[in-house]
């Protein structure tokens, strides 16, 4: 079907687009970008920041300072567009690749580095930024996100008509996760209870080495029809379109009209993680094809051509990103390492004497080495 070198098999399927890869603003009959040029500048700055954090994290891993890093390279448009559509009272359930979402929600990227350095388990305060921990078991977050949405309804925070009060949930997942039973269960529960959940599928075409056509014979957004609620495909590398589509879905959810399935059609430009070698399973043509659709360069072209941003703006963005990367590198290397004993305290709210005895025995054993010294 595809005649375009490097194009994915279902790429011809229509997707909402408001900014072309060449940086041209275009209209769509159903969706419009409601932000101004200041917001487009913010998108660019945030995408550049996230890309810089990603590059620094990869470098830290290569130098042995992180155990692993899943790169978000190429998916900044989907992540930033979606995160900017959320209000502070909305709640996000991100996957381990959603660095653009977590950072935009206000989580210090140092917390992400801590998780992948192996000094903690990704333990930002899930209430402080209304953002859950990274899900590692693929798809588990879909039913959890729906449960959170059911809680919002019970708390009277859906459909009250007060924009400062009404809230919804965005459940992020990928094309690989779409095959997991928990995703389907999340869609079933959300449909059954009309829960305020936006299912945001970042279809980056690859689940480690398995192409998206291994997960689905039909475009993923069409699945929503079978569950009884709307589905839409959006150009995931167009932050403006993603923002418009997610804003509409969130509005629908907050006002009590139920869930939406968004398929953000994007591409994982990097490896699955720093442990992966994509040259074993995909062709360079595909990368070239998607490099021309880069989410940052199209926004930059638009801002430059329209005169909405000058060289000083881009210099400042780069300087801010470099400053953040420098700070992260410095602080990453001195992150405190917890003791095994501390982790015992995290297990139960009401401590068990059995566990306390186990720890005491281990500490006596460990102390015996101290005494021998």
């Amino acid at each position, binding site marked *: 079907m595809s005649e375009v070198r490097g194009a994915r098999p279902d790429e011809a399927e229509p997707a909402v687009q408001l900014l072309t890869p060449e940086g041209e603003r275009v209209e769509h009959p159903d969706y419009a970008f409601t932000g101004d040029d200041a917001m487009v500048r913010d998108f660019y700055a945030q995408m550049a920041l996230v890309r810089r954090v990603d590059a620094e994290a990869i470098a830290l891993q290569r130098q042995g300072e992180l155990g692993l890093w899943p790169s978000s390279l190429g998916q900044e448009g989907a992540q930033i567009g979606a995160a900017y559509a959320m209000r502070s009272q909305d709640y996000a359930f991100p996957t381990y690749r959603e660095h653009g979402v977590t950072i935009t929600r206000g989580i210090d990227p140092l917390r992400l580095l801590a998780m992948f350095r192996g000094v903690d388990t990704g333990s930002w305060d899930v209430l402080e930024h209304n953002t859950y921990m990274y899900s590692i078991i693929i798809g588990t977050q879909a039913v959890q996100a729906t449960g959170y949405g059911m809680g919002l309804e019970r708390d009277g925070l859906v459909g009250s008509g007060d924009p400062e009060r009404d809230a919804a949930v965005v459940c992020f997942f990928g094309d690989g996760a779409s095959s997991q039973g928990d995703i389907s269960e999340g869609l079933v529960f959300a449909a059954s209870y009309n829960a305020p959940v936006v299912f945001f599928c970042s279809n980056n075409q690859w689940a480690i080495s398995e192409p998206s056509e291994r997960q689905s014979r039909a475009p993923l957004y069409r699945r929503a029809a079978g569950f009884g609620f709307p589905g839409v495909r959006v150009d995931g590398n167009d932050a403006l379109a993603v923002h418009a589509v997610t804003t509409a879905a969130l509005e629908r959810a907050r006002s009590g009209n139920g869930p939406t399935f968004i398929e953000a059609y994007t591409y994982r430009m990097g490896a699955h993680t720093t442990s992966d070698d994509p040259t074993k399973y995909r062709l360079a043509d595909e990368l070239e094809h998607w490099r021309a659709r880069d989410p940052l360069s199209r926004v930059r072209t638009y801002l430059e051509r329209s005169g909405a941003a000058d060289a000083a703006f881009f210099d400042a963005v780069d300087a801010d990103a470099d400053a953040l990367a420098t700070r992260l590198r410095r602080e990453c290397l001195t992150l405190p390492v917890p003791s095994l004993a501390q982790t015992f305290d995290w297990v139960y709210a009401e401590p*068990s004497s059995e566990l306390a005895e186990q720890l005491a025995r281990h500490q006596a054993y460990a102390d015996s080495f101290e005494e021998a010294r």
Partner: protein
Amino acid sequence: MSDTAPAPVRTMTMAKALNAGLRRAMEDDPKVLLAGEDIGKLGGVFRVTEGLQKDFGEARVIDTPLAESGIVGTAIGLAVRGYRTVCEIQFDGFVFPAFDQIVTQVARIRWRTMGRTPMPIVVRIPYGGGIGAIEHHSESPEAYFAHTPGLKVVTCSNPVDAYWMIQQAIASDDPVIFFEPKRRYYEKAEVDTTSTPLPLHSSRIVRPGRDATLIAYGPMVKTCVEAAEAATDEGRELEVVDLRTLSPLDLGPVFDSVRRTGHAVVVHEAPVSVGLGAEVAARITEECFYSLEAPVLRVAGMDVPYPPSRIEEDYLPDLDRVLDAVDRSFSY
């Protein structure tokens, strides 16, 4: 007290005691929700939740789609919003679709958040055999959960414990897997709803004796008490300990008992290998080695899938198999 208020002391079946305990927990805390398959109008296949949806509404007593992972997974999201959901798994063998959410998520969320985010979820599981059921309706999967750090696992053996333990489990900020011995659902006892209950995570000596210690939980407690009564004919006084809590274990009373008797037999329906009995036996050996007159013996299900119901009596530990083990202990 109004005319319709229930008397403080009532004779109840275990199913009714659980129902009364759930009702009281829901009255005490508006954040308590129930979720499961057929628990609303029907009141659950064992009628444990009978009448609760009528009195507390569909928002608090939630009939769910047929998806156990969804039942437990949504309870997690609700817990992040401060709700305390009691999930009903319809039968023991149906818990495995929810196993991932329980083991990789529920059990770890407090730990992952360095203690910030509690998971006050109760998963009720009717378990065990002896009711003539078809496959996957007579399982005893407690060891899987007791093996998982972050979960607490308890099981009631009588209506009084059922009434209190379900309330204590709901009040706990830790996730509790609550096993209900389904063949004891309709056994009756007098429940005093004004008394002071034992702490949730404590074992209890249900029958004193000086000659040997029987250690059991859930459905096997009654079997062991009957065995102890029968043993008096042979002049043996058997002490019976109801473990009640499987994680954490409360083995202090067991050790005290075994130090006195020198003989210990652990009884459960679950397959014998790598079951709770193995853990209890190991711990008794570690703590009471010089008091033991014989190895700790186990009477349990066998390492085969739970059999078709016409032959389940051959599989399930009963009075005779328990007394046979006691005889073996004394002839060691």
